């Protein structure tokens, strides 16, 4: 099974893939409305907001967690080298 290169989510169904295209390496949550993958900064901000919304953390603490998540993923590795 493929996992999203930008967030690590397992992609099983067509609806999990960006723009419903199973050829894509990233998921529906990591794409822009036009189907392109979000940029590093966009993804970081979206993840940060998501952590604040779901866990209520301080924004700086949430951003740090978002960066730590991204550090382990193939799409963003080069930003941390």
């Amino acid at each position, binding site marked *: 099974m493929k996992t999203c290169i930008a967030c690590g989510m*397992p992609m*099983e169904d067509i609806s999990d893939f960006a723009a419903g295209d199973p050829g894509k390496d990233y998921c529906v949550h990591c794409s822009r409305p036009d189907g392109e993958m979000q940029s590093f900064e966009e993804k970081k901000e979206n993840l940060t907001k998501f952590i604040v*919304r*779901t*866990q*209520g953390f301080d924004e700086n603490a949430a951003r*740090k*967690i978002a960066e*730590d*998540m991204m550090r382990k993923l193939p799409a963003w590795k080069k930003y941390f080298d």
Partner: protein
Amino acid sequence: MRTSKRQIQKLNTRKKIIETAYKVFSEKGFSVPSSIIAKEAGVSHGAIFAHFPTMDDLLISLLSDFGDKIGASLHALAKKSDSAENLLKEHLKVLEEYEAFYSRLISEKTRLPDEAKNTFAIIQSTVAFHFASVIEREIEKGTVKKLPIHMLFNTWMGLVHYYLLNKDFFSDSGESVIKRYGSELLSAYLNLIKK
């Protein structure tokens, strides 16, 4: 390619170290010296460092395994558009399976190395992700009160963690707190959040 006897032996040693570390950390906490893990696993002290250069590496590896397990079971359920009740039941099931380790983790978290703390934060964020996707659907359907997601999530986690952290008051002789109180916690929580 065939796996050589030596490679198989190496994998077995690694497995034994991980299983023993899981047991020793759960029983004695995370500051146990590596020599004790080596002794319990029946391997040389050097063998531990051949597989895990530092004790932190060993801890991170255990944490990642736990994270993968909890992530996989909640992912499967959240995808099925299941109810909050079933998702939380599954959450409790995984926590019960890993109860001793998880209780140590939450009680010693502030003393853990940064990378382990970060890995734990990522695991909890995965749980929050699945929780949010299920609970938002229930809010939309009108079956759960319209409260902020983080308060719904933190109330659940706070309740479960309180029982785990006070295991000595809630249970006797090492009995599982989740096994004994899980269904009571779940029904009380659902009563609080349901419309």
